[in-house]
């Protein structure tokens, strides 16, 4: 919790500090467990309900731990017309997870995203911070077998 207090202190003087604090806390702890949210509420003197409101509004925050590898498949417009649905069902099939799920051994988390911003290479997916473009079911098999 020292780490959390450090983050809160850093932003104490700033207006509108909640989101940056949540972002840094998530980076530090991997996700946002309840005691972290309670700590932020105390630190900023905000009701827990308001913090939950913000956390659940944004797709970026998560309340449960994520896997070691987060796989993000794009379902944006460019990817959609290039067959994103097939890409998504192939990934789901290979790692046996549905969208939004994390494997019990905390190896993989699978998410779909509105756009990964690499639309020229659609369909696109990401594993942690690495992009993979022009995906086909075949390529996915090769890529995922490396993890």
């Amino acid at each position, binding site marked *: 919790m020292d780490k959390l207090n450090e983050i809160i202190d850093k932003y104490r003087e700033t207006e509108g500090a909640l989101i940056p604090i949540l972002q840094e806390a998530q980076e530090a702890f991997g996700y946002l467990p309840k005691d972290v949210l309670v700590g932020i509420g105390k630190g900023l003197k905000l009701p827990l309900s308001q913090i939950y409101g913000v956390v659940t509004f944004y797709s970026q925050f998560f309340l449960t731990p994520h896997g070691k590898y987060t796989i993000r498949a794009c379902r944006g417009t460019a990817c959609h*017309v290039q067959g994103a649905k097939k890409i998504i069902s192939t990934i789901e099939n290979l790692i046996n997870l549905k969208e939004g799920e994390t494997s019990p051994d905390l190896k993989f988390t699978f998410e779909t995203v*509105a756009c990964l911003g690499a639309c020229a290479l659609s369909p696109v997916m990401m594993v942690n911070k690495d992009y993979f473009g022009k995906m086909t079911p075949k390529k996915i098999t090769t890529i995922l077998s490396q993890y």
Partner: protein
Amino acid sequence: MKEYRTNIMLCTGTECVNKGALEIKKALEEEVKKRGLEDEVVVIPTSCDGFCNAGPIMIVQPDGIFYQQVKVEHIPHLVEEHFLKGRPVKSLIYVPQKEAQPIARMKDIAFFREQRLITLRNRGLIDPEKIDEYIGRDGYKALVKVLTSMTPQEVIEEIKASGLRGRGGAGFPTGKKWEFCRAAKGEPKYMICNADEGDPGAFMDRSIIETDPHSILEGMVIGAYAIGASLGYVFIRIEYPLAIKRMEHAIEQAKNYGLLGENILGSDFSFEVKIFRGAGAFVCGEETALMASIEGRNPEPGQRPPFPAQSGLWDKPTNINNVETLANVAAIINRGAKWFAEIGTETSKGTKVFSLVGKVNNTGLVEVPMGITLRQMIYEIGGGIQNNKRFKAVQIGGPSGGCIPENLLDMPIDYEELIKVGAIMGSGGMIVMDENTCMVDITKYFLTFLNGESCGRCTSCRDGIDAMLEVVTRICEGKAIEEDIEFLEELAPVVKDASLCGLGQSAPNPLLSTLHHFRDEYLTHIKEKRCPAGVCKELIRYSINSEKCKACLLCVKACPSSAIFGEKKQPQTINIDKCIKCGVCREICKFDAVIII
């Protein structure tokens, strides 16, 4: 700076880096050194060239030779042939789809030839992390001019005279917006750069920031001077880590050079910029929601008026501009409003950056003069449709925009013309669709997107989108009747009129434009229970052509629902009851044996 005989301008934009540009850089440097060319040849990492599907890209200057799809293993041969013996390597030179002749020089390639770069003026030419390179190309010259010789009102007049309109969606005249904010009472005033870019399928704002962050900062400082703002925010979505990093770096450098902060360039004008990392919701790009987000509130859009210019961030006068809008400002100050106003059409001046994606051969980022036709965009710059398929529609304006059919391809692109055909300029996503794209399915896609992104505050938007989605889904499933179309046509205007913010007001656009231009396709789904593009799952069936099937069993392994069966070494069969119609088998089959019926 040291002069070299040859400069290798290696693109290190997101796409090229993903395809291995950094490994190529290392290999190039090693090979150049190995051959003892290090005093003659230098590798310069540049920002995105825009021709993303040809990446990794490098341009050899001064002769302008354009290499594409370069791999590490090409490097030894390339260095020996081109840089040692002076013979460009044919196999790495771009060959257009239809012509067999390779085109060696960048300026001759159609993808680049038709472009006119104002906001992307430094693309491929500078290292975006070095402020000196920006300054070397007239960077911050406009700021000096403004601070030493122009009053805020003169700056506003210049921008007004240029005809610059907002590139973030609605196309509001930028000079006028600044004037309102200048006239508003209240201290301090804020200047916000909107880099939320929530439109799925568009990435120009990300690319502009990654390419040339200082051009946006310079525009912001000039704008802040014009309206009298003392604090600025760049609102960048968190999904864009490289853009955030480059912007942070640029702000740091500008501060060190006295171009940001207290008493900029020794004048009595002070202005600071902070970055706010937006947390990924489409509605955050709407200006009132964006400000709520910076204030730490839930990003629900608020009522307008009052407009941000009167009462914005923390109830103070606030000006919000899109990234691309701001990137135009310094160029206008440097070259004059008259020069800018001569480019484009009657009502839409200057250029527009589009992310040209989908089923065209050349995908990437292009900047073109307003008034260029869709046909030029798709067939000249885009190089036509992939795999010689037939063009069907181009979607412009994202979830607030519309689909434009083939018979309108010769229309010029400007704000007003696009509205006339049921689309909007939007932020500049341009998604090309071919005969294999189903227009009803695309409509369902956009409504699903909007349904998830509506903040839920107004009933008309929340329930209206939901109801439209329900009907369109039934059409895709072959469970609709003709009267459903009438219902959609009655509901759509209600959602438009009764919703509070732009999201709801424009949400029916994708539906209305496809209903208007592709009504037959809707009717085929309803009356014949058929999806002509072969997309809508409920209306198609997969089958294996036993003559073509070679029993390789790839599809059996790939099928997520174990629906494919058969004897070893015999043609396989699909169990229709188990098949979830994901199409993976068809994709993976090497013999085109899987067909849609």
